[in-house]
């Protein structure tokens, strides 16, 4: 049982996430952009952050930077959901010390498995090896 904050601006994808997580024991909170997501994270630090990359007001990379800049939040793993798992994007994410990546379109089961792995603290494979 963990607390997870999701940041995603696309309504359809927020709904996919919400429905996918219904069957799990986790508590989830959905934010429509990075700014609102950061507010939710600061209010009550979650066990995991799942965020989209391209969002209005504050994008995923800016959110990750803001989280890493706060000592109290630095240890929270971040799962990025990206539309394009291209080498350049992955390298950029790597520079933000992120925990894992999931490419759109993703399957609800894939999302749940990834979340469980991250919460259990399992080491993540190097995504560059897969995209090279």
């Amino acid at each position: 049982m963990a607390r997870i904050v999701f940041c995603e601006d696309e309504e359809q994808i927020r709904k996919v996430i919400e429905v996918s997580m219904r069957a799990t024991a986790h508590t989830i909170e959905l934010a429509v952009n990075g700014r609102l997501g950061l507010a939710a994270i600061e209010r009550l630090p979650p066990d995991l952050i799942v965020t989209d990359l391209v969002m209005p007001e504050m994008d995923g990379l800016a959110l990750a930077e803001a989280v890493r800049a706060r000592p109290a939040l630095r240890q929270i793993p971040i799962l990025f959901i990206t539309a394009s798992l291209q080498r350049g994007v992955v390298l950029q994410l790597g520079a933000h010390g992120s925990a894992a990546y999931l490419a759109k379109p993703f399957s609800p089961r894939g999302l749940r498995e990834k979340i469980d792995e991250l919460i259990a603290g399992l080491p993540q494979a190097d995504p560059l090896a897969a995209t090279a």
Partner: protein
Amino acid sequence: MVSLSLAGVVLCLAGFSIFAAYTTQMHVDEARQIATLQESYSKANAALLEDESAQLEALVFPSAERIAAQDQAHENVAAALREIAARGGQGEAQLVNDLLRLHEQYRDVYAVLATAAAAGDQVEVRRQDGVADGIFHIMRNRLALATEQGQVEVDSSFAALHERTRWLLILAPVVFAIGFALLLGLWRMLERHNRSTRAIYAEIEQLSKLRGEFVSVVSHEFRTPLTGIQGFSEMMRDEDLTLPEMREYAGDIHKDALRLARLISDMLDLDRFESGLTTAGHFPVDLNRILTDAAVQFRLSAASHPIVLELDERVPTLIGDPDRMTQVVTNLLSNAIKYSPSGGAVELRTTSDKAAVTLTVRDHGIGIPTEQLEKIFERYSRIETKATQSIKGTGLGLPIVRQIVNLYEGKVWATSEPGAGSVFHVRFPLPADSVAPTVGQPRLRARAA
């Protein structure tokens, strides 16, 4: 290819120069050789004359020195003849051979003459003198003949040389002028080639940039609805859902499928427009009605953007394709809303005069930099700035608008004050024969397909 031709021209010029120099040198050598031979002939002639006087002197006034001089004169003649043989060719060798033989006889006759003179045999002296004189004249005649012939050869050789060099003098400037012209042509060709190559490279670069943008747009815009389709269908397959839940998710999948279909049809539309495959429809179009319907539609989905209509009732019924016109209005309206992230009214206005019907869409959004006002109508050329990076779009909407407007010979353009909003203007010309917009049936003239 070009450098090869260049090398060819240079090689030709060099070859011609070498040929010209060689021909000239050949003639000069030949003439010089004949001239040397002539010199030997006259030397032999002189030696012959000297020989005769030496023989006569030794005969008339015999002394030890004169007899020695007589032998020396004989030797001189032989040496001069051998020199001719050495300098000449086959013909000269034959001549010299004959002359040496005659000279030998001449010598022998003088020996007999000297004996007869010593013996005082006048008859024998006269006879031998006649023989000697005869041989002497034969030798001189042969030499004179050879000399004359040689002179003719010298003359003709020099004449030929003169002829040849004159030809070269005329030809050389012509050849070099042609060579220069070829070089100039080659250089120009090279320049043009370079320029067109640079242009092609620029075009390829532009195309590959567009392609890159297209790929990133497609990958982003397609993945969002695909996520919905994949997610909801997977849950419908794997989870125990109630019928209302099933219906709801099926509706979500349907919505995403429509979104994908719209994306694909936009892309195909644009392709068809750009390749000139679309023909203009000829149906009555009520522009004001289309605007009113679109406003109703958008008021539902974009509540934070009040839509203000200012419609000119005198706008005539146009002839065109209502679906296409709806597409124009929808694309402009959704852009106006999309690029006004902080809300604000969107104003739709129509006006008409004798010449044209004009539609304007005004927003109070982020605006468009002046240098981008034309570029936004190009395919996939969304403006990438801090302000637009979080606004999603395919970059297909405005290019489609322009293509449709062009199909009906209209014009679309944008004006903007960055930070304060943009205005999109669409102007459809009315045919000149319509007396007044309110009278008769003014129509949009369709371009011949």
